[in-house]
């Protein structure tokens, strides 16, 4: 046939819990239990609390730039819920604080990280987690690599790699997706489409109608979900994780959400955010709708909410105290984690805290003949000038 269709694709959008807290019961079948929903809701509230507190810490000068996670909590908690703890591995992006917490990272470490303290970045021994990366997109290659290691060793582990909408424009995204598909590694890619990369709106990030369709380029199964809906996020991830664990290779999930804050504490979104947009987004945000749902189902009430908020406040206060009261790092820390063992030139730099050769070897001082040039030297100079 001279002219024929050789390729067709269609992508689904999934929402199970709507903005008013109404559940699509058939679709919700086999997803989250009431207990799980209650648990995830509480986690989200705690993380929201963390977020607000971190913001204040920065504003009061006790922390550097901080990227708030506000509004994106549902993607993190519900996707993490689809993983098997202690087995599956997460490669998160820099804004994904809620994910780090869900994977078990002590919360004060995230504060330390943004306080410019590398101790915040040490992965506790038993966690299957790489730390967030300030290079947008870089981790989208690491996730497939780690997943490939699992596959080569025939360990039934899945990797979840997360990133923002902006990250999809980087070459690392392109290569990561392609390698994952070609080598059919057990990796789930989750794109937090929060509509912005700093000030750049999604319409300037890509001319494609969805981010989900970017996966078609690699032959990767793909879906777009309501990222403020823990049921849809959970279900799509559960499916993807199962596919990966079963040898079916990678999947892509575009989670549509919204950044309810400035890009970071160094940003002012009023410069670029169209009027009314934030207000609209607030109607769709995940905490409110999850609470509505729980309340409708009589799984949650005001006293519980009050107690939760009290608990969150106390917890976060402790977290902040831990981060703030940590002892000052040692200068020697600079040297001790660059290589597994110190090469000679670093040993000298570490010992002397100098890079100038005389400072490194002060016994040279004063060994030189006095500065006044003697005759011979004068002569040489004169010759050299001529």
């Amino acid at each position, binding site marked *: 046939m001279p002219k024929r269709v050789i390729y067709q694709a269609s992508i689904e959008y999934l929402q199970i819990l709507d903005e008013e807290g109404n559940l699509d019961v058939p679709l919700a079948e086999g997803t989250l239990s009431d207990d799980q929903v209650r648990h995830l809701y509480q986690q989200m509230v705690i993380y929201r609390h963390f977020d607000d507190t971190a913001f204040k810490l920065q504003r009061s000068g006790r922390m*550097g730039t901080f990227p708030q996670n506000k509004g994106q909590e549902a993607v993190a908690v519900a996707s993490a819920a689809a993983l098997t703890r202690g087995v599956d591995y997460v490669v998160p992006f820099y804004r994904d604080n809620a994910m780090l917490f869900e994977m078990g990272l002590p919360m004060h470490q995230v504060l330390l990280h943004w306080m410019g303290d*590398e101790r915040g970045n040490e992965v506790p021994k038993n966690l299957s987690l790489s730390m967030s990366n300030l*290079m947008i997109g870089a981790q989208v290659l690491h996730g497939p690599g780690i997943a490939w290691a699992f596959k080569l060793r025939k360990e039934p582990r899945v990797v979840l790699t997360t990133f923002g909408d902006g990250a999809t424009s980087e070459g690392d995204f392109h290569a990561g997706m392609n390698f994952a598909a070609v080598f059919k590694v057990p990796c789930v890619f989750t794109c937090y489409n929060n509509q912005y990369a700093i*000030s*750049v709106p999604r319409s300037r990030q890509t001319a494609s109608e969805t981010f989900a369709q970017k996966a078609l380029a690699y032959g990767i199964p793909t879906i777009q979900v309501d990222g403020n809906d823990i049921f849809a996020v959970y279900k799509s991830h559960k499916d993807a994780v199962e596919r990966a664990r079963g040898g079916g290779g990678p999947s892509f999930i575009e989670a549509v959400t919204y950044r309810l804050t400035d890009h970071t504490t160094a940003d002012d979104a009023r410069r670029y955010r169209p009027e009314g947009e934030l207000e609209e987004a607030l109607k769709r945000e995940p905490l409110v709708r999850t609470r509505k749902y729980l309340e409708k189902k009589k799984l949650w009430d005001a006293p519980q909410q009050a107690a939760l908020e009290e608990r969150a406040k106390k917890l976060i206060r402790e977290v902040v105290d831990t981060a703030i009261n940590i002892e000052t790092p040692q*200068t020697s820390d600079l040297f001790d984690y660059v290589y597994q063992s110190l090469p000679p*030139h670093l040993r000298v730099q570490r010992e002397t805290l100098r*890079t100038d*050769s005389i400072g490194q070897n002060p016994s040279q001082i004063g060994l*030189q003949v006095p500065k006044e040039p003697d005759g011979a030297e004068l002569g040489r100079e004169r010759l050299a000038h001529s």
Partner: protein
Amino acid sequence: MPKLDLVEAINLALTQEMERDERVIVLGEDVGLNGGVFRVTAGLYKRFGDDRCIDTPLSEQGIAGVSVGLAMGGMRPVAEIQFDGFLGPAYDQLTNQAARCRSRTRGSLSCPMTVRVPVGGGIHAPELHSTSPEAHYVHTPGLKVVMPSRPYDAKGLLISAIRDPDPVIFFEPKRVYRSFKEEVPEEEYTIPFGKANVLAEGTDITVITFGASVFQCLEAIDLLPESMSVELIDLRSLSPLDEQTITESVRKTGRAVVVHEAPKLAGLASEISSIIQENCFLYLQAPVQRVTAYDVVMPYYKLELEYLPNAERISAAIRDCLAY
């Protein structure tokens, strides 16, 4: 004459060049409506429109490579890479494409583009927001590299860069962005590449530096006894280098200390030290000293001031070099 800080001086240069030459366009992440994360491009979007002050997708590789194409196509792109660390993805297009465009085609195509990059540490930024990769670009024939330390120089050098027929990496020491103001002429002027600036004349020792380290060196000199007469050179242009000014100074003083924020091993200080040795061998009273960052990864910011060469380390090196 208005007093401007570094950001304002660069902004003024951009505005004037865009006004003067339609081919000049500005592109990068968040340079448009948002005016740049350091506000360097503030106002350009409003003044010149979305066609000439352009927010791009999040791809430094794309920004660099498309700028190569724009330049080949007759425009004069001024690309912003948001932070030093993010030059990484742009490196290939800059070193293998921009730098080679002219020589690859025997001069029949060229690549008149400028890449602006906030550089260096000291502002409590997160990782990869505080690096000093200039040596990689200096070691790339076909590129020119400059790093002004002050508003006046920034304006003149940026105008030179934009008008230059070859690709220029224009590093902006972000620690200096808002640190002080100085008089910057309203009218256009250019500062030629390859000309260092002697900031202080002296007879005992030459201190050679560039970028934000200039201010650490000035502080260091303040820590020294009056009797030590220090000549301070701000290179401004890193490729080409002003060998002549360096050589003449060290022939006079007989001693030299080179200071920069990048690590020591194969950093630019080694080049300058070598040049001095080659050109001033018979004049040297002490080995040329290098005061740089340690050969470690730029740490998270709690330790950045221990990592960067500071006034204490620099002044100690000057003293020791004088005492050698």
